[in-house]
């Protein structure tokens, strides 16, 4: 069954794909042709076609990360034609569809580039730095059980909504990939501001921001210079306001916490 345009013609495309054997070898761009690509295919389905062709020909398929293919797991992470997740706003790579391209197009596909995101192979990168930042404080310290009734603390709807919007971050890393400084501020601030907005998060707000920022710096991410590429390319629309909130939290924590270290 066709989608928007049942008469759309299949496309032939040239792909320029970054190939790199592993972390310790040099990579390079390799050209491939794919034929009869339906405009209703997703971008990753187009890559599936390429990989099936390669495998049948006895060549190694292109490694790339993906999983849910519905824009929520945050696995997919391709830099397509000079843009994180490609040309469509508010869209992950897996939700990008080929109807956004034209027959005869050349598409350049690269992995995220950042010192903190080393390449595993081809288009797959290591984003474990994000996990370590969360481990540094991206949580509320409550053990299982012994928690008060869920309705004990009323939370104004607009606050809950804003916390939710910050919490929708999928940790894909597009913010880092598109930032000139490879800064992770949008990612880190989304978690800091979610937990700073909610009353449950207030208890640890000072140590949280101090520790998470310290870990972020330790991982080798750059400093934010408020360019705004991150928010512009964020597939789930995390706002720059979160970075301001984090800056505020940081200033407050550093100025008033009892932590002398």
């Amino acid at each position: 069954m066709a989608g928007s345009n049942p008469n759309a013609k299949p496309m032939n495309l040239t792909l320029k794909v970054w190939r790199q054997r592993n972390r310790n070898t040099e990579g390079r761009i390799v050209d491939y042709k794919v034929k009869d690509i339906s405009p209703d295919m997703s971008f990753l389905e187009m890559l599936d076609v390429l990989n099936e062709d390669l495998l049948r020909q006895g060549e190694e398929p292109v490694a790339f990360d993906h999983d849910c293919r519905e824009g929520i797991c945050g696995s997919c992470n391709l830099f397509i034609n000079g843009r994180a997740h490609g040309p469509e706003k508010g869209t992950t790579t897996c939700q990008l569809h080929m109807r956004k391209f034209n027959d005869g197009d050349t598409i350049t596909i690269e992995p995220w580039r950042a010192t903190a995101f080393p390449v595993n192979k081809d288009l797959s990168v290591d984003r474990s730095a994000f996990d370590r930042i969360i481990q540094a404080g991206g949580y509320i310290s409550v053990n299982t059980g012994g928690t008060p009734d869920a309705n004990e603390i009323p939370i104004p709807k607009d606050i809950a909504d804003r916390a939710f919007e910050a919490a929708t971050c999928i940790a894909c890393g597009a913010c880092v990939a598109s930032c000139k400084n490879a800064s992770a501020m949008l990612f880190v601030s989304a978690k800091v501001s979610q937990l700073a907005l909610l009353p449950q998060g207030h208890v640890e707000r000072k140590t949280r921001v101090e520790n998470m920022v310290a870990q972020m710096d330790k991982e080798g991410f750059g400093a934010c210079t408020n360019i705004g590429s991150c928010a512009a390319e964020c597939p789930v629309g995390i706002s720059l306001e979160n970075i301001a909130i984090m800056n505020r939290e940081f200033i407050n924590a550093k100025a008033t916490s009892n932590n002398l270290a």
Partner: protein
Amino acid sequence: MSWITKTFSSSIGRKIIMALTGLFLCSFLVVHLLINLQMLRHDGGASFNFWAEFMGTNPVIRAMEVVLMLGLLIHIYQGLALAVKNKKARGTQGYVVNHSEQNSQWASRNMALLGTLLLIFLIVHLMNFWIRSRFDAMGGLAEVKVPNLDHPVGDLYSVAAASFKIPWYVALYALSQIALGYHLWHGFRSGFQTLGLNHRKYTPAVYATGYAFSVIISVLFAVIPLIMFFSSAYQPRPATGNTVERSLTEEPALR
């Protein structure tokens, strides 16, 4: 490291320093511009020289001058340090194709470049005016009488008027104001964001103010030398044995 050094060596701490010094430098620009505008008065530089004297002798201003210099140096140092850190974070392998123009403003991505251009201009500019007016060993200024003051003051006006008759200097000056404009275009609002001053009610006003500020400041700074270059109403006083002034003024036009 103590908590203080840790704070200001963290990525956010460095940015806070950039924001504080940057916004402070913005306030200086306003004062500087107001005084520069005095040159356009048709009073042979009397008002300008009066205020120049004030800036050079008032103890509060002199004290602030030290703070300003420190602020400027810190701003430059941190800016360069950030640029180096950020380049390292980006890594050695860049993108083969990168369309960052589709997700951000040119000025925002090129603050380090703009800052460097401004630094080059500043060096020339300071050598020309500030060092000269502050340190007699560097040439000093001729003395003139101005109304309302019973003692003679340094004739900075003539230095400026003479400089603004040199085509390459006027061009450098005016072009540098474009760099300044772009630098402010990003820097003003960016400073607020870094300090956490982002609120859906007020941020639009901050943006608008920043854009207006950058245009007004840079345009006014740029038009002063242009007017003085093209108009015959602004002339330096004839040289009175001041060799440095002569060397700057290739063809001293006499009134």
